[in-house]
């Protein structure tokens, strides 16, 4: 799909983005840890002490949700701006513009990996090895990356034409946050709504991540399969959509 040269360009775009993000800030990369941590603390206090939620290991439970959520929010937002923020190069050279979108998502993905690395260290120290199901995590991350990238492929070209998308997506993020089991367990959802609820591919990801890290449980084959197919179709549809739109990108920027 991509030549070696294009892959090296992708690497350059990703690393450059990552570097620029934390340049000129005193805490640098730590911000990528501090941001989800701050969100985590707020929710932890509200749900644990004010709302008295009854979930075992709520701290870890919540942290997994927040870290994943944080990736989703960062990657789709970066993906949304992926083309517009690179207009200066897109308007002046010809290359595979999708590299900009992939690079933006990869940058967020890199943060996710680093965040999870720190998280896993704490998990190991406090709770011990979570079990073989830990090795399901890479597949899960890949699925999640596909979902974010697929959505970004929709968002980025649309944003080039309609700047409203930026605002709409901001609202969408709020909605998605609450219809995804980030802060609460899926058991809170009434039984009859559950099938619809699980249409949200993010819900599957979060549930699977928790199962494999906290319960040492692999997802059922069916559930895992559906979730994977869902992620792949989002990516494919997004990429198809992008390919239809790509011809006019430079013109409308």
């Amino acid at each position: 799909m991509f030549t070696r040269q294009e892959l090296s360009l992708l690497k350059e775009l990703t690393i450059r983005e990552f570097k620029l993000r934390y340049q000129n800030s005193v805490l640098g990369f730590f911000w990528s840890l501090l941001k989800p941590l701050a969100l985590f603390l707020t929710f932890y206090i509200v749900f644990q002490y004010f709302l008295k939620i009854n979930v075992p290991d709520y701290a870890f439970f919540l942290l997994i949700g927040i870290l994943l959520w944080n990736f989703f929010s960062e990657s789709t937002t970066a993906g949304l701006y992926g083309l517009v923020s690179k207009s200066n190069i897109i308007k002046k050279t010809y290359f595979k513009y999708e590299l900009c979108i992939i690079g933006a998502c990869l940058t967020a993905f890199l943060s996710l990996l680093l965040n999870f690395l720190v998280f896993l260290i704490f998990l190991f120290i406090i709770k011990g090895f979570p079990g073989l199901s830990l090795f399901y995590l890479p597949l899960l991350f890949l699925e999640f990356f596909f979902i974010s990238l697929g959505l970004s492929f929709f968002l980025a070209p649309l944003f080039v034409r309609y700047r409203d998308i930026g605002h709409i997506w901001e609202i969408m993020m709020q909605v998605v946050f609450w219809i995804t089991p980030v802060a609460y367990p899926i058991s809170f959802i009434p039984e009859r709504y559950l099938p619809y609820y699980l249409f949200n591919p993010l819900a599957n990801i979060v549930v699977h991540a928790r199962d494999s890290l906290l319960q040492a449980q692999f997802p059922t084959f069916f559930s895992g399969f559906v979730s994977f197919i869902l992620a792949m179709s989002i990516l494919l549809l997004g990429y198809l959509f992008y390919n239809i739109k790509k011809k006019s990108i430079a013109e409308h920027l």
Partner: protein
Amino acid sequence: MIEVKNLWKSFRIFRERKHLTLLHEISEAFTPQRYEEFWALQNINFHVSEGEFFGIIGENGSGKTTLLKLIAKILNPTYGSITVNGKVVPFLELGLGFHDEMSGRENVMLYSQLLGMSKSEIKNNMEEITEFSGLGDFIDSKLNTYSSGMKVRLAFSTAIQTNPDVLLVDEVLAVGDLKFQRKCFDVFREFKDKKKTILFVSHDLYAIKKFCDRAMLLQQGKQVVVGYPDFIIDKYFYSTLQESSSTHEKQALKGKIVEFQKKNKMPDFARIEDLKKITGIRWGTREIEITKVELFDKFGKKISVFATGDSMKIRIHYRKHQEVKNPVFGIGIFYQNGTHCFGTNTEVEDYAVSSIPEKGYIDCIIPRLSMWEGTFYLNVMVHDDKHYHYDWHNKMYMFNVIKPNNYEQGLYNLGCIWKLSK
């Protein structure tokens, strides 16, 4: 090799929507956007063979950059086709939008990869890029410390190191200093020797003349003519002259001319020196009347803008009201600030006009306008051999001179010839 066939490109220009109320805005959202189709390029056909240096000239907004962008595949044609053999490297609109927060070196890395180079190649070329750009130690400083000229130099240095088969150059000479321009010329020469294809957009006609094998003139998106640079440049230069001439005519002195005293009266000699300083004034006794003054360029076209080095013909129409002996026709040319450039008359030049017909004209031909540029006033007069003024048109006419290149300097082109001792 580049083959452009029947190429058309249109842009949609959307009319600004008025958002008055929310309701209005919502209803507008469901009506299709109104737009105008703007044809940036219309039916372009040309062929550039391998190793050819092809120039594109035209005014701003004539579609030059759009054409380069289409060849670079950044834009897609509305109709028609473009075939390019080999690796194309574009250098458009003063190079790449670099990232200010990164060092020159990091920017070069990214830019070269965008242009299709591998990392190892870039590392090998880094030194040459730094050297060519003349940036020295600045290469490791952040780009926001660079001047705009430095950025362009860096971008161009990177572009030429990518070893393209086809190089698209858009106005690189406009920003660099003289030293950099000279380096660019060396590169062009080198590329030419290596049989690389270059498409070159520039307002620098001298450079086009010097390097291009062929050139194309674009006007308002239409391909006017393709051919040898000399021919194209002439065509371009005089088409712009004609246009500026027509606008120039409007602001000429018409309507502002003051008649001194009553007709048919000669002012005191003492006052004449003062009068000569006034723009747009006329006096004289009108035994002979100057009825009209026309300026013609080397093509015999009536015009008021000339190029340095061209010829100019001043045609003075007159009407004789009374028989006179030995009339003297004269002209005077002044800079706008009043500096007297040149003055002559038929008497000085020993062109005896003993008797003239009732009505006619006399031509004064200046074979070579040697002044570089500026706006000039023209005096036209007829008097007798004892300086009794029949009709004196003082600074009543204007013309402009434009220099065709930017390389020689000063007030005048003295037309030097160099000779080396053997």
